[in-house]
């Protein structure tokens, strides 16, 4: 494992250099919040943030992605034959991703990549991505990564981990992919023991700060139908607007819709993020809707994250504890409280 020290200016420079070999995405301040944008000379990366408003999920799994294309031109001998759209899978790096968001990729992986079916787009985007994480020195009060198998300096899914030591960054290569990335970074010097100690202390300190202790331990022992029939769902769902904020901001939501779009004789098949909060999500052609009521959709979201996923994959809950849905739910429906209700039911 390589540990290198960069001053913050050096690191920005190094990232500029790395842009020759990788598409480098960095957090950039964009109005009131931070967003991942491709590294460029005009706008400097800003690593002083709590978390990006949107998770980095769209860099591996875009909100709207062309799957196939086809011609509808009768004169085209290949008319109506659906073909794969060529894609660019050159290496990319997400620099500054928080460990919770990286953990999100691990959570969704069995959905996109399992022994029965492999989603070619997600897999190829994911495999071409280097995850360069930034540890959280100051976790938010709404963070609960530690309750769901992560932590503010969790190395689990990261290829590289950055420790913010104040004036300097200590950058650690964690995987082969990460070491390769780091080896191409110009500048910096080997970290001495003092720096490593300081970094470790930061991680220990941060771990203590993640206060929210969200109980999920008993979820796996519950019976699906018992939780499903629990009396609290109407109350939990009352305020819900059925907007897509929680699901679109979530690093672990994966649902999508498939739509055909035609312009003249050119057709595209596109997949778009979808949300279980929308009534249309489950509306049958016949007009029947198994989840036509708001509370049913709210129940679906929480049951999926905190029970169905738990039973299906037996690897914890489908939540990385990033706290976005807690902070940005327009009506303050709080997954931490729902987890408690479910866990203690």
């Amino acid at each position, binding site marked *: 494992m390589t540990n290198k020290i960069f001053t913050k200016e050096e690191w920005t420079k190094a990232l500029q250099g790395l842009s020759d070999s990788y598409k480098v995405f960095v957090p950039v301040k964009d109005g009131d919040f931070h967003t991942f944008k491709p590294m460029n000379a005009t706008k400097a990366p800003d690593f002083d943030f709590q978390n990006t408003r949107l998770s980095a999920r769209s860099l591996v799994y*875009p909100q*709207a*992605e*062309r799957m196939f294309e086809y011609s509808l031109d009768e004169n085209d001998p290949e008319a109506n034959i659906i073909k794969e759209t060529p894609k660019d899978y050159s290496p990319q790096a997400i620099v500054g991703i928080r460990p919770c968001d990286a953990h999100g990729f691990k959570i969704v992986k069995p959905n996109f990549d399992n022994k029965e079916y492999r989603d070619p787009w997600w897999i190829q985007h994911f495999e071409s991505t280097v995850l360069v994480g930034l540890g959280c020195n100051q976790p938010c009060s709404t963070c609960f990564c530690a309750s769901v198998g992560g932590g503010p300096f969790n190395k689990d899914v990261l290829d590289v981990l950055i420790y913010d030591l104040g004036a300097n960054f200590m950058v650690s290569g964690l995987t082969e992919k990460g070491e390769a990335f780091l080896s191409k970074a110009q500048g910096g010097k080997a970290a001495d023991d003092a720096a490593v100690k300081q970094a470790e202390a930061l991680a220990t300190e941060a771990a203590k700060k993640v206060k929210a202790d969200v109980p999920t331990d008993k979820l796996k022992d519950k019976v699906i139908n018992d939780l499903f029939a629990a009396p609290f769902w109407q109350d939990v769902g009352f305020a819900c607007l059925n907007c897509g904020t929680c699901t679109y901001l979530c690093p672990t939501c994966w649902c999508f819709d498939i739509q055909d*779009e035609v*312009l003249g004789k*050119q057709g*595209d098949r*596109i997949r778009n993020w979808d949300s279980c909060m929308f009534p249309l999500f489950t509306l049958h052609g016949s007009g029947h809707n198994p989840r036509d009521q708001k509370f049913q959709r709210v129940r679906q979201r929480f049951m999926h994250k905190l029970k169905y996923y738990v039973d299906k994959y037996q690897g914890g809950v489908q939540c990385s504890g990033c706290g976005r849905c807690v902070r940005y739910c327009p009506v303050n429906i709080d997954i931490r409280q729902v987890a408690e209700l479910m866990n203690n039911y």
Partner: protein
Amino acid sequence: MLKGLLEHIGIEPGRLNFSWISSAEATKFVDVAQQVAASVKALGPARYLIKKRAEVA
């Protein structure tokens, strides 16, 4: 109000036109159609709110 809104977001005045024409008012229809065609031609091809191939990844 639709005209007001569309012009407010940048659709040029003259692209959206309204008229009351009775089925008996043939000449008025011709006049209005010519006026509309002329005003739209003068503006040139529309630039905004035109769906092209979806801009997606």
